[in-house]
């Protein structure tokens, strides 16, 4: 009897059950999130990694003076070297490897289609730079055509009838032979990071987009960090609470929630139409992204400032530090980890932003590298958007590969945020 009395009914069972239920809910939610993340990463990587390699042809090319300069006039007319028939040199070199007769014009056409369109210009650039090579034989590596690349990577269904394929059976045979001889092989696709826009997938890359994104990030950092932090410090530490500051506060919070495409519209009207800044330029893109980022930075900075213990302010003020000394010598240093984290997350957000850039004309076919932020450029996410509209297999692969690059940049920025935070927090 007395033993029974010792146990009180304090609903222990229900409480533990509720706890177990909550834990399993949490676990389930996390597993679901991880699952989808893995699915995303798997689908992106499985389709995109192949674009890091590109099929190339390495063969020895005879720089035949009779083809480059049949009349021997190059000493007087250097122009000749520039307009010579380089694709023919390539074709002849490959035909020789394949044992195709130079009289079999039909086969020769198929031989020349194995090369990328850019191979001829590559050879031309080499010869124009080093005219003394004329007459010699050079072992060189050229890009293969994108169909060859796709087939070589096993991305094309070869069981369909020959007429519906880009490559004939003869070309497939040649590929086997060339691969066996080591002429056809895969190389690391440096071009993907260097080339600009092109209608030929093997010659298009992220070059312009990377430069554009870099300019824009630089502009965003340069503009939004000082302005955002200054605004936040003023609002949080100096401005009193009144109608006016309340209004500003509400507006900043709203600004952070405005759909990004509206910022693009704003940029179009203000920066391009009103201020006359160049369309498609990374300057305008950067300014638009600044507008988007700096509410985020203000909000992050304000909450970082607010998180600094009031006792630190009192300690400084009590010693006779002025308001400004208190803020700059005690409060801001303690808020720096939070400010940095907010800034980097804002930048990462800006890096992935696409919609506003479409409106200011950054969705453009830009073949020349932007020398300054005033020149037309694109951005990595915009490039992804443009490639995603292409049907060719080689572009699909590039789309996913560009996504991998973008994700890697985002991951790097987030890691940087964590490292910086730890570094600054470790000071006591």
């Amino acid at each position, binding site marked *: 009897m007395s033993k029974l009395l010792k146990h009180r009914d304090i609903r222990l069972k229900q409480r533990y059950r509720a706890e177990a239920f909550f834990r399993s809910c949490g676990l389930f939610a996390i597993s679901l999130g991880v699952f989808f993340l893995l699915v995303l990463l798997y689908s992106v990587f499985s389709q995109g990694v192949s674009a890091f390699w590109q099929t190339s042809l390495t063969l020895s090319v005879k720089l035949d003076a009779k083809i480059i300069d049949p009349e021997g006039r190059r000493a007087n007319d250097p122009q000749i070297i520039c307009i010579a028939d380089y694709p023919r040199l390539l074709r002849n070199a490959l035909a020789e490897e394949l044992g195709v007769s130079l009289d079999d014009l039909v086969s020769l056409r198929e031989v020349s289609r194995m090369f990328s369109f850019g191979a001829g210009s590559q050879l031309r650039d080499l010869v124009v730079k080093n005219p003394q090579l004329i007459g010699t034989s050079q072992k060189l590596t050229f890009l293969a055509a994108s169909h060859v690349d796709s087939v070589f990577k096993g991305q094309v269904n070869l069981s369909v009838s020959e007429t519906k394929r880009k490559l004939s059976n003869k070309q497939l045979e040649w590929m086997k032979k060339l691969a066996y001889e080591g002429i056809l092989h895969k190389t690391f696709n440096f071009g993907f990071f260097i080339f600009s826009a092109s209608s030929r997938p093997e010659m298009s890359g992220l070059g312009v987009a990377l430069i554009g994104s870099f300019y824009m990030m630089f502009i965003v950092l340069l503009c939004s960090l000082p302005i955002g932090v200054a605004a936040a410090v003023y609002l949080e530490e100096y401005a*009193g*609470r009144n109608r006016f500051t309340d209004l500003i506060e509400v507006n900043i919070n709203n600004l952070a929630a405005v759909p990004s495409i509206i910022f693009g519209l704003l940029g179009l009207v203000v920066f391009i139409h009103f201020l006359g800044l160049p369309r498609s330029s990374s300057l305008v893109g950067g300014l638009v992204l600044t507008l988007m980022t700096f509410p985020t930075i203000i909000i992050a900075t304000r909450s970082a400032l607010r998180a600094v*213990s009031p*006792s*630190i*302010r*009192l*300690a*400084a*003020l*009590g*010693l*006779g*530090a*002025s308001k400004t*000394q208190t803020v700059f*010598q*005690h409060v801001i240093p*303690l808020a720096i980890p939070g400010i940095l984290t907010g800034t980097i997350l804002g930048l990462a957000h800006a890096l992935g932003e696409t919609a506003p850039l479409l409106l200011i004309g950054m969705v453009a076919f830009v073949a020349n590298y932007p020398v300054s932020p005033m020149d037309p450029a694109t951005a990595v996410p915009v490039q992804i958007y443009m490639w995603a509209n292409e049907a060719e297999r080689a572009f699909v692969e590039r789309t996913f590969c560009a996504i991998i690059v973008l994700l890697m940049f985002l991951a790097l920025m987030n890691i940087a945020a964590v490292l910086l935070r730890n570094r600054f927090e470790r*000071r*006591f």
Partner: protein
Amino acid sequence: MNPELSIKMRGLDVKVFYDSNQALHGITLSILENNVTALIGPSGCGKSTFLRCLNRMNDTIEGARVTGHVFLDEEDIYDSSLDVVELRSRVGMVFQKPNPFPKSIYENVAYGPRIHGLARSRLELDEIVEKSLLKAGLFNEIKDRLHDAGTGLSGGQQQRLCIARAIAVSPEVILMDEPCSALDPIATARIEELIDDLRKNYTIVIVTHSMQQAARVSQFTAMFHLGTLIEFGATETIFTSPKEQRTQDYITGRFG
């Protein structure tokens, strides 16, 4: 009162409002030089509020408004001619919860002299830091850890660090708001000893919840109740023969 005692600070009809809520109803009180004055009274009676009037820390509270006069020596500290930064360098403060800066012990103590330009050289600064830590009775414990974090010390040590930090600016008056309420009895005893030592060179005003502490460390006691000063006098008199019934009741623990 003893004629050789001179008045260091004097509040004259001090009223404090937090927005529309009046916390102090006209306090007139003198703080005597080189003595410890204890402010006692039940929670919420305005002790901290009055203490904050003495170095204008109420300025930092939004909505707080102070009327009346507070004199430091013969100067009215609410007169615009006395800068608040200068005032706080002359009237230091130690808070209820130890609040060292998240910096090294050395930097904590050196901060005040640095911003006020009290040291002309690094050597002089070292000397000020060492002396302040000595006076706060902390130096011997931490002399080989000067460059370790101040926040890594124990609660009692942190509070003594805060006292050293306040002393380093060479104030004339030190205000302490329940400096021992977060500390264990041993740390409390050390601080009480320290306060008794400091009295020789500084004028001290201390808010305390502990009657024993008030009796032990103070020479004068002011009893607050509901925003008014109900009794002020020598501590001995207040504790042995208070004039007011409410004081008697509070001291003996019948309310508070």
